[in-house]
């Protein structure tokens, strides 16, 4: 690169890579800040004017926020699962994508906690969950594990920051990054342990609601079957979300960042796990129908009210489950980038839909015979405040991509 034409912040770039002009970078960051600021306004309205500004009500205490929260955490599972595959299973090729998986994980988990902060309406009371913890509540398990795991993710993210070209020149930071890298298998193992528990306990949140036959599941010891299904579905879709984010980043950057064989490994593993999930989910659904019948809740009653008709079940398991599983299992289909990306989108949408069903639809189905079905749709405040964290994540990714060595293969794939 000609030093005269290099952006003025080029000294901060990773060694041997090209980045756009600083003014263009600033322009796109400013563009992203538009919807982000709308989200900030929405968030301040929720905190300042109370939650009456949303479309939530006593019939729908859970809405878009909780569904998005569960969905985002499932998508963020790519971080711990890629770490598990890289450091515990020791699939060496994944070192080329694990950094980015960590960045996505940090973004997802920060977003999830932020959304929860808006959802409760009074985040200053949020610490009660730790101080007055009820050990029998799945939500307590979620809170503790997510907070701890977010700390683990930050520790995993830290060496990436310290490896910034300028920071790394400082001996202390260099040494710290080096030692953190050395400890990464242990850190990853802790992350895996915590993640299994919080992904599972998020499944337990609807699964233990025995007053809601639509959501309730029997299970093993204190864990309903949804506990295990949520773990499995998260590790089945997490890698696909990592692939999707990598693809979007490549399109924005206009260059390849990760070799295809690395992507293929993740896609193949994701496909196999998705098949396993679909088999178990189908068994769970059949068993659930039998159990629900016992308390006088026929399957038809769950799907009697639109928009929650049978199409929901067919779409979740069929279109957004079976189709991506077939694509991801087929080596030839995986080689076609467009088809692979479609599979990833379907897979991630399926998980998101599952989380929506297990939270919002679970509340939509009337329980008492004289209950009315009430429909719910989020309003702009709920959308804007949820998407705010997505935009915030985009900014973090933009900064990370520009200044941190996220993609080890970038230099090799894009020789200057």
């Amino acid at each position, binding site marked *: 690169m000609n030093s005269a034409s290099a952006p003025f912040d080029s000294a901060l770039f990773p060694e041997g890579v090209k980045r756009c002009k600083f003014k263009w970078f600033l322009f796109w960051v400013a563009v992203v800040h538009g919807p982000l600021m709308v989200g900030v306004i929405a968030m301040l309205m929720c905190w300042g004017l109370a939650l009456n500004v949303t479309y939530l009500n*006593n019939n729908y205490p859970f809405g878009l926020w909780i569904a998005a929260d569960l969905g985002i955490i499932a998508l963020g599972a790519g971080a711990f699962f890629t770490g598990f595959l890289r450091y515990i299973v020791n699939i060496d090729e994944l070192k080329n994508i694990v950094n980015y998986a960590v960045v996505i994980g940090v973004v997802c988990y920060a977003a999830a906690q932020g959304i929860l902060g808006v959802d409760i309406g009074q985040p200053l009371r949020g610490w009660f969950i730790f101080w007055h913890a009820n050990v029998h*509540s799945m939500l307590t398990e979620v809170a503790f594990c997510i907070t701890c795991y977010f700390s683990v993710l930050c520790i995993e993210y830290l060496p990436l920051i310290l490896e910034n070209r300028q920071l790394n020149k400082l001996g202390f930071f260099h040494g710290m990054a080096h030692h953190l890298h050395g400890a990464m298998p242990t850190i990853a193992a802790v992350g895996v342990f915590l993640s299994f528990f919080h992904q599972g306990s998020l499944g337990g949140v609807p699964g233990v*609601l*025995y007053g809601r036959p639509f959501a309730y599941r029997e299970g093993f010891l204190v864990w309903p079957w949804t506990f295990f299904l949520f773990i499995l579905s998260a590790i089945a879709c997490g890698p696909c979300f990592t692939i999707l984010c990598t693809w979007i980043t490549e399109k924005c950057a206009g260059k390849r960042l990760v070799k295809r064989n690395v992507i293929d490994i993740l896609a193949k593993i994701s496909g196999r796990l998705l098949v396993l999930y679909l088999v178990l989910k189908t068994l769970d659904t059949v068993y659930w129908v039998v159990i629900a019948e016992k308390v*006088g*809740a026929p399957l038809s009653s769950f799907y009697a009210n639109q928009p929650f008709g049978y199409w929901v079940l067919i779409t979740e398991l069929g279109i957004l489950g079976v189709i991506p599983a077939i694509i991801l299992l087929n080596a030839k289909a995986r080689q076609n980038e467009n088809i692979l990306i479609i599979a990833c989108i379907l897979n991630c949408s399926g998980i998101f839909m599952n989380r929506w069903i297990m939270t919002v639809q679970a509340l939509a189905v009337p329980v*008492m015979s004289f*209950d009315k079905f009430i429909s719910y749709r989020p309003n702009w405040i709920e959308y804007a405040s949820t998407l705010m964290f997505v935009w915030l994540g985009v900014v973090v990714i933009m900064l990370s991509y520009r200044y941190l060595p996220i993609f080890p293969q970038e230099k090799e794939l894009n020789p200057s």
Partner: protein
Amino acid sequence: MKEVHHKADEHHGAHKKTYKFGMVIDLDKCTGCGACMVACMAENNVPFRKDNSDRLRSNLWMRVYKISNGRPFPDLDISFIPRPCQHCEGSGHHHTPCVSVCPATATDYSHETGIVSQVYTRCFGCRYCMAACPYHVRVFNWWDPTWPKGMEKYLNPDVSVRMRGVVEKCSFCYHRYQRAKNKAYAEGRRELHENEYQTACTQACPAGAITFGDLKNPEHKVYKLKKSRYAFRLLEKLGTNPKVYYVSTRDWVRKAGDAYAGEEPKGVTHVTHA
């Protein structure tokens, strides 16, 4: 149903030398006048808004539902179902639905009284308990509580006012229990008389449809009333084991109350009365 009753009786062991307060509501007597709702709101400082018509967001600890058998005149029949908190005890391996899920221990089951409490100062508004309750008894404070000018002087000093962002629900007028207990202690007694502790809705009901007392005390009216062959509880099949019983000689009313929405008796329409 028998099985659930049996399990409930087994739980009596956990209430030795204690109370198990509950309610029996005679639906054949209830006229749907709403006096119980008004009394409840006044007694418990339940906030309301100038336009309180949005039933999905209004704070009603006691709510009266109106149902009909859906038949044309002259076979049309209606019934009103007053619905306070059911104060579920849980059965088998299930705890009270809302108590077990609250992450901050802001709701608790008292083995001394059988009352499900709500600790407003601990609640941080996650609303998980609302999702867990199949009876919709829990309401969220979507607004800050405000009262018309001067009305704040009429608030009940025994009941704390709740701030926005916390969940609240019927407490079986627990403050009245505390008051009655203090009085009994002062008089050197350890037992409460039946009339010493009554909820506001019970006393306000002009038709005498609501009876309140200790469900395990044979001397209390509720003990006999709950054993009526016409008695039932809402959604018994779920195993929540509520302490609010209903009585109706009308078969369709009993079926409507005990049935899950999916097996709703033919013809029952959902009309909500406030």
